[in-house]
């Protein structure tokens, strides 16, 4: 009369994930059953196809980039720990966390880590700068065929102009953070 999904996730693992990501026990079990339902191959890992099977994600213009963010460098499979680590960036900050000690490691869903996640969506070649081309690429993904090249180019130029402070025609992470000052 054993159960299926829950026994595969041991209590020690749940504790570890709780410490690392900050999700509650029930949230972790819920997300684990979501993970297993997406895992059609039943081998404990998700591939890109497993994500693309979600229709609402497939129609998201930035869907492919978001899916990529789950997979570590050069790998095609993500396990449950990696899945939770990426999702943790978007866990809302609770009030009892705001006054935690400053000496501990920064929680995954801190403002800075969230911004780093977004920065990495823009910065494809991982050179810590968003160049005009990279910005254009993301813009093109978001608007499709509905805006001309020139207009898109001028939007990109204006955005870089506003955010760029050291004059290198690219947006570094510090400049990126500055642009979100009040977010």
């Amino acid at each position: 009369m054993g159960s299926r999904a829950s026994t595969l996730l041991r209590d020690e693992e749940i504790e570890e994930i709780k410490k690392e990501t900050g999700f509650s026990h029930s949230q972790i079990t819920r997300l684990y059953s979501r993970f297993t339902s997406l895992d059609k191959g039943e081998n404990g890992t998700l591939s890109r196809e497993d994500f693309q099977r979600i229709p609402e994600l497939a129609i998201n213009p930035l869907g492919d980039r978001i899916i990529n963010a789950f997979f570590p460098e050069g790998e095609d499979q993500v396990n449950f720990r990696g899945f939770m680590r990426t999702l943790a960036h978007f866990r809302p900050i609770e009030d009892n966390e705001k006054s935690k000690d400053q000496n501990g490691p920064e929680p995954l869903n801190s403002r800075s880590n969230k911004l780093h996640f977004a920065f990495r969506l823009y910065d494809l070649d991982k050179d810590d700068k968003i160049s005009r081309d990279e910005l254009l690429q993301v813009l093109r993904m978001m608007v499709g065929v509905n805006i001309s090249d020139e207009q898109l180019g001028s939007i990109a130029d204006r955005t870089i102009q506003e955010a760029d402070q050291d004059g290198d025609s690219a947006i570094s992470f510090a400049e990126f953070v500055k642009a979100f000052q009040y977010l």
Partner: protein
Amino acid sequence: MFLLLPFDSLVANLLGISLTVLFTLLLVFIIVPAIFGVSFGIRRLYMKTLLKIFQWATLRIERGAKEKNHPVYKPYANGIIAKEPMSLEEEIKEIRRSGSSKTLDAPEFELSDIFYFCRKGIETIMDDEVTKRFSAEELESWNLLSRTNYNFQYISLRLTVLWGLGVLIRYCFLLPLRIALAFTGVSLLVIGTSVVGLLPNGWCKEFLSKHVHLMCYRICVRALTAIITYHDQENRPRNGGICVANHTSPIDVIILASDGYYAMVGQIHGGLMGVIQRAVVKACPHVWFERSEVKDRHLVAKRLTEHVQDKSKLPILIFPEGTCINNTSVMMFKKGSFEIGATVYPVAIKYDPQFGDAFWNSSKYGMVTYLLRMMTSWAIVCSVWYLPPMTRQPDEDAVQFANRVKSAIARQGGLVDLLWDGGLKREKVKDAFKEEQQKLYSKMIAGSHEDRSRS
């Protein structure tokens, strides 16, 4: 060894007698009522007994779990994210408002816009509306079937004994009984309709055909121990109309056809299904298509139109979703049957998953495995609502009409009304939807007077 020992002959005698008794009981209590459409109420009594047992079992599980401090129920059974739906423009404006100190009269691109798509994407990864419709619904409490056991660990000896007893009853008593009934029902259908088919067309043939069909479907209903409650039977479909219903499993056909006389539509299969199909069409004009004809939409529409225009012909039974959905939602209705212009009689079917999940996950189980699972569940309990007839209004097209019918069915059955296509079970979503999202966003940042979008 051609002399049986006295002991062996005694055993043989006993076996013979018990089989005869069983058969007589079967005939009297199940088959004869099926022929006449009456019911002794045995199945409802069975259902009430089961409910009491489930309630007791649930209490035991809750008590046991509290002692051991285990979580019993799956949290957030309906979704992990609580949000009100906002349009793309509203959400992006909110992100920008909380981010920048500038006033927003020129809605052009901001770096923070990416967060909207990011957040939407992550939310759908955590929980989406579509993929969970293609697998069986998870129950809140356990119904003593190991196949629905997700979260319930060993609690007590009594519960395990009860479960074991359940297995014994289901597999050793109910299953052979049900198989025998199913066999009787199907063979009577094939033989009966073939015999009726030999008669000349006329009042007599129709009368006999109707009753043979009804009788055999009723026997099949008892073979599955299906306990059906019909509501609003005055709205039952009439000749010249089309009956549409939400689709959960092939059993839907048996459930509807045991209460009404319909013309079926479908593709000719091989094997046993094909034999049944070829037999029933002799007695009454069902609409069967060859495999090659199914792809030709115009041919299908033409044959259906011909059928409904002949007022003497029976109402057609169609499942416009095109595939089996897990009975928690209704997905997009294909517009073909709504273009024909006949009166549509919507029917909502809702199964109670506590006694046995009727959903056919065709990617996981074949037909035979599925039927065996059905026959080893406790029972199939469902409610059927006949909704008042609907016709297409002059100012709506087929798609809008289909959506209107779908909403009515969803509302009556307590199901979620989705616009997504049931075909997403196997296929990828069309690119047109992504293009729609992109169009919405570009309208927002380009401004309407500068809109250079290609239509």
